[in-house]
């Protein structure tokens, strides 16, 4: 359900093109590209941690001019198709836009958003490797995790006043943020994220994951299961919450493939400390927060 006007949809589409990326990745891209011999894998490692840069690269490579036989769903794949030099110059053009401020007038904390996106992405990839390897691709699950809340950062950047209200309602009335967004904006971050992803011709499973990650009645898929479970685990362990704090009833939404005991799933994942530390370092959040 959405009450976005066509004008507002168009505004958001074009606005994202001018959207700045995250501070650490902008800084890293500028530093790495000063060296003509910078290792391609280091550049890819930076870009694939930044939801804004990732979105922008997937948007251009899936454009009609390339008419590629399969949708491109990862930064690594984009390098195979476009070459590292083109990816490097694209990243530089993204870096030139500037950096997202940690807080804008909506009060939304983009560092905690990024921490949440990165940990959900990494955990979603591991869950896929352990529980759904034959059904879907771990890299696709990573991208689904990285981009599932992209609509929030779009709201924060381009509809700051409305998003501020939604965040306040969610916090004051103890409501899920997406419900508050629907009340204030007329559409939630999942809808808007999926709308943009669809217009940019992202792969359909990715669009569906973004659209339905809060919709319990949506058709399940292996990718969606991994994303939802990763989201539950990361919010339960306070690895960032992207404005939507953990609630115990969230456990009721554990996808069936993971059984009923969350402790078993956590044990299967192994040590997540490195993932969390890497994400904290990239999101520039001090350890222990």
């Amino acid at each position, binding site marked *: 359900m959405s009450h976005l006007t066509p004008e507002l949809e168009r505004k958001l589409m074009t606005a994202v093109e001018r959207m700045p990326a995250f501070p650490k990745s902008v800084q890293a891209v500028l530093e790495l590209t000063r060296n003509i011999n910078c290792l391609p894998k280091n550049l890819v490692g930076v870009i694939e941690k930044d939801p804004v840069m990732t979105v922008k690269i997937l948007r251009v490579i899936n454009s009609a001019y*390339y008419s590629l036989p399969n949708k491109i769903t990862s930064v690594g794949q984009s390098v195979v198709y476009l070459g590292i030099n*083109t990816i490097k110059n694209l990243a530089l053009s993204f870096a030139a836009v500037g950096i997202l401020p940690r807080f804008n007038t909506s009060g939304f904390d983009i560092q905690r958003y990024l921490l949440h996106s990165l940990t959900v992405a990494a955990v979603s990839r591991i869950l896929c490797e352990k529980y759904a390897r034959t059904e879907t691709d771990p890299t696709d699950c990573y991208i689904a995790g990285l981009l599932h809340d992209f609509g929030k950062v779009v709201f924060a950047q381009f509809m700051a006043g409305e998003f501020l209200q939604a965040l306040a309602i969610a916090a004051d009335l103890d409501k899920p943020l997406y419900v508050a967004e629907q009340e204030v904006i007329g559409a939630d971050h999942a809808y808007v994220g999926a709308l943009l992803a669809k217009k940019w011709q992202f792969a359909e499973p990715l669009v569906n994951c973004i659209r339905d990650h809060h919709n319990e009645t949506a058709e399940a898929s292996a990718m969606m299961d991994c994303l939802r479970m990763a989201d539950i685990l990361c919010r339960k362990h306070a690895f960032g919450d992207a404005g939507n704090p953990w609630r115990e009833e969230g456990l009721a939404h554990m996808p069936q493939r993971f059984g009923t005991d969350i402790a078993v799933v956590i044990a299967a994942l192994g040590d997540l400390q490195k993932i969390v530390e890497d994400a904290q370092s990239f999101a520039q959040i001090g350890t222990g927060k």
Partner: protein
Amino acid sequence: MKVSMWGVRGSIPSPGPRSVRYGGNTTCIEVRSDDDSLIILDAGTGIFPLAQTLLAKLPVTAHVFITHTHWDHIQGLPFFVPLYIPGNKVRIHGAYDIVSMQGIEQIMNVQLQYSYFPIREAELKAGIEYQTLTVGEPVIIGDATVTPVLMNHPVTDLGYRVECNGKSMFFTGDHEPWVNIYAPEDPEHAEYQAMIDQRQAELDAAIGPVDLLVADAAYTLAEYPPKIGWGHGTFDSTIQMAQRIGAKRLICTHHEPTRCDDDLEKVFAEAINRHPEPGCEVMLAREGLELAL
């Protein structure tokens, strides 16, 4: 269909006694379809001598296909004399540039800036049209069909498959086989290699079997390692490509600009020795080479 080589050198024109047998002009290939439609693949400096031959029969209708916009493939365009003569028609085809977010329409505008060239695009008298191509979408030129294929080079680069009445040729433009950006011990290595293998299979299928393959063979195996990522192939990678796609004849081009004729023949002979049964006729590109398919 007739194919004529007007420029076979890579990177920068290399005139002089050391390159007199194979030629010093940069990339330009003339393709004449059976109904004499004129298709020009790339506008390196080789397009200038080609242009001289066209002036005898006006008006000229030329279909220029640019593989990519690096200088050695467009340098001759402002000297393509038919552009200055009223009544001629020149249609320039090329890729969408993902970084500048512009189509091939920008090519002349960029080249003919005031500080770099005395004539403005608006002062060219021929009818000039631009067509930004979609990968895989064929363009009909007279009785020929030209299909763009996405290659691997440090800018968007299109190879072109030209077909006419059952005969076919493919020109790679500049192309380097994909290299894994991860070390074998990196966890990402296997996944990236799988993506490369898939991409290679897609490319081979898009090129398909051809009567003639004209391909970038800039380097020897020994020269290649420090030039990984520069976007060029080796004699060996080019022969392997011909074998994979089932080419009947292979022309190795994009000669390294510092390589003299004698050295070119020497390294070519060494490559052939490494591939004693290439499965097709293999030859070096040289200016003036003409092949009827």
